[in-house]
């Protein structure tokens, strides 16, 4: 009954340290060093949320997911999913979670999809009616109909990924973890997967946690995003809030009647000019209207436009880019 009070997924100062041995000088000498893959992460996810978990390569995303599923045992901190400690009660938790690794299939390589699903049916002890219903729904929405008789090893990446997503959902999991579910998919497949996930979240109320390097996934699916880097949580909140945190700037592109010295108005920063055209940067959180009015009042204006900051740029900057790099990418 505690699950009503506690959040569905709860991490407290979660840590995972890998000890790696490196060959050092000398034949048999080896140096030990520590990789703090997850370095004290805390967050909570409520039932029914759809959360994006992003960060640069090696940030610790996959490691976190592996701890959430019980594959890896944390080195420190506390972790609860549906009130269960994943590493301790892995098999019990398995009934309640679904997992898709973009990089690795959970299906039986030599068996047709259909047979893989039948094995899942047995293994998860899914009631026949539920199984049929879930399978039919997945087959329809993910367009798996023609693939059911094909051995998994013959499926293309996108087909396999859809097959994997269906496999993860047959037992009505309460939470679905997806580690890069759109990796290597074409635009059409990506769209289909996204549509399916969003449908799943709204109709079934399944909690979804997904990692991705494609920010469109996040923009289209997740109301909440968490950014991690070097095993630490850098941001947790709405996608739009990233702009404020990232001190991102919008651009005002001004076309003047003739070439003039850099525009100087309060609240904006001159970026560069190209003949009569000038670029001004101002905080993404500020309104453009007063700035436009000021420029129009003081300069001979022909045309102007506002360019929204690219979310990728914002995040790239959070990933540790310097101010200079950002300035370049803003142009």
């Amino acid at each position, binding site marked *: 009954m505690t699950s009503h009070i506690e959040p569905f997924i709860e991490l407290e100062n979660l840590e995972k340290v890998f000890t790696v041995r490196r060959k050092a000088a000398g034949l048999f000498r080896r140096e030990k060093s520590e990789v703090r893959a997850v370095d004290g992460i805390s967050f909570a996810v409520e039932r029914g949320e759809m959360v994006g978990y992003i960060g640069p390569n090696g940030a610790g995303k996959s490691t976190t997911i592996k701890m959430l599923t019980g*594959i890896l045992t944390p080195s420190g901190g506390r972790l609860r999913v549906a009130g269960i400690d994943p590493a301790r009660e892995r*098999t019990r938790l398995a009934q309640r979670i679904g997992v898709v690794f973009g990089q690795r299939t959970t299906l039986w390589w030599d068996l047709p999809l259909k047979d893989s699903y039948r094995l899942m049916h047995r293994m998860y002890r899914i009631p026949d009616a539920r199984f049929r219903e879930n399978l039919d729904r997945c087959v329809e929405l993910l367009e798996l109909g023609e693939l059911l008789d094909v051995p998994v090893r013959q499926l293309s990446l996108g087909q396999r990924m859809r097959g994997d997503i269906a496999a993860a959902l047959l037992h009505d999991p309460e939470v679905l973890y997806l580690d890069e579910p759109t990796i290597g998919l074409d635009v059409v497949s990506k769209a289909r997967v996204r549509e399916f996930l969003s449908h799943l979240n709204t109709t079934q109320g399944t909690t979804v946690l997904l990692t991705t390097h494609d920010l469109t996934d996040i923009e289209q699916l997740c109301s909440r995003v968490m950014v991690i880097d070097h095993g630490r949580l850098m941001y947790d909140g709405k996608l739009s809030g990233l702009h404020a945190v990232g001190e991102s700037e919008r651009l005002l592109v001004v076309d003047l009647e003739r070439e003039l010295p850099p525009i100087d108005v309060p609240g904006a920063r001159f970026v560069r000019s190209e003949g009569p055209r000038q670029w001004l940067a101002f905080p993404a959180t500020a309104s453009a209207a007063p700035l436009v009015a000021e420029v129009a009042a003081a300069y001979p204006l022909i045309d102007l436009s506002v360019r929204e900051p690219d979310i990728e740029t914002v995040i790239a900057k959070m990933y540790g880019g310097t101010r200079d790099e950002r300035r370049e990418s803003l142009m």
Partner: protein
Amino acid sequence: MVAGMWIRSTMTYRASFLITLFTNFCVTFFDFVAILLMFGQVKGLGGFAFAEVALLYGTAGTAFGIADLTMGSLQRMGARVRDGSLDTFLLRPAPLLAQIAGDKFALKRFGRVAQGLVVLIWSLCLLDVAWTPLKVLLLPVAVVSGAVIFGAVMVVGASVLFWIQDAAEVTNSFTYGGNTLLQYPPTIFAQDLVRGVVYVVPLAFVNWLPALYVLDRPAPAGVPEWAAFASPLVAAVLCGVAGLAWRAGVRAYRSTGS
């Protein structure tokens, strides 16, 4: 069910399935012929008569065969630990050990059990022993306990693979090597080796101690006579050790970076 699926998936490569089946059959058959020839030539070994050696061979072979039939897949787990494909098993709602054990099912392993059983039955026909109810009871108990002992040693060996993925060669020497050792009378081996098999890795409880009791021969390495009946106890203790080792191994599993 899973075995059925396995056969079906193997059947998808039909030719290779048939070849595998055929070679497995041949290997088992020639193995068996070799044993018969050996027993035909050797009249006795280390003071043990031919039928007595056959009893040792049959009990060790059967016990090992049963253990190998159920746990044999464990030795190939090193590759799964290394390439991280163990992840998939850890996601499923069944105990990891059971999944790995049932992972690849090999028909040839049945051959091993059959071979051991045939030699065992054959030796029982030839043996000239004063049977008592206790001896009759001891034999099946010993074979079953022996299978459990071998199985537990295999699990401990597999647990080591979580830390050292290349250790299969070393751990196999305890099981496959132990099996070979136990097929011969303890009198032909160095005392230190026999002591090791009694007190360190207690494989002697698989068949040596019970079989020597059945044959009315003294136990090796100064072991008391009641030890012949301790096999189930040793098996139980080893299962506990194996359970702890396996758990520690799973906790140490580190998957892969990608």
